[in-house]
């Protein structure tokens, strides 16, 4: 099935997108294929260095902050999470990170460092930063959720 652009809620777009792309993200960001490929590789590299469940939790939280419909749709059937101390520390960190990273406290970092170690905190921070940018990009462009 070919992809139907849904940019800004309209059935058509002036962007010269590939209407055979599997998703609006692929169609729009694929306008710059090399940069998009490196972008995906960056996201994948940060994700590979991080606990996937923890990253998904952080991505959902950021998507809720931004109102990112593309990401929120991926979690539409998630049940309520049961939060561990690590999850709570990560969400506390993420909440401050997206609002003002300069105000992330030493205590917030220390709480994470106690769970993940220094290397783990750096990796999680890189992953959160990378995926935050991607989610902001999606939100600004109002990318439609990928079809299941």
């Amino acid at each position, binding site marked *: 099935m070919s992809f139907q652009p849904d940019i800004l809620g309209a059935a058509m777009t002036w962007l010269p997108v590939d209407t055979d792309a599997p998703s609006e993200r692929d169609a729009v960001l694929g306008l710059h294929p090399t*940069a998009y490929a*490196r972008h995906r590789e960056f996201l994948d590299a940060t994700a590979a260095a991080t606990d996937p469940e923890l990253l998904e939790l952080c991505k959902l939280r950021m998507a809720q902050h931004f109102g990112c419909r593309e990401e929120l749709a991926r979690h539409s059937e998630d049940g309520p999470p049961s939060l561990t101390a690590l999850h709570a520390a990560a969400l506390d960190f993420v909440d401050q990170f997206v609002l003002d990273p300069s105000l992330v406290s030493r205590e917030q970092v220390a709480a994470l460092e106690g769970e993940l170690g220094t290397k783990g905190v750096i990796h999680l921070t890189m992953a959160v930063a990378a995926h935050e940018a991607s989610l902001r990009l999606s939100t600004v462009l109002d990318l439609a959720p990928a079809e299941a």
Partner: protein
Amino acid sequence: MSRLAIPDPPPGLGLSAYLRDYTDPAPADAFSEFSKAALRIDGVERETLELIRIRNAVVQSCHL
């Protein structure tokens, strides 16, 4: 120094380079490749981008 529980970097070594000792190089390398590719996008003017980076650094109190 940083908010992390690690010693200060040796004199003359920048924080970014120092933190690479604590990380898997793959994400940092992938970021570098993405940055280079993004700068090659048609219509991306380096001077304008630098101004935006500086503005964002000021807003976010980034000292790098």
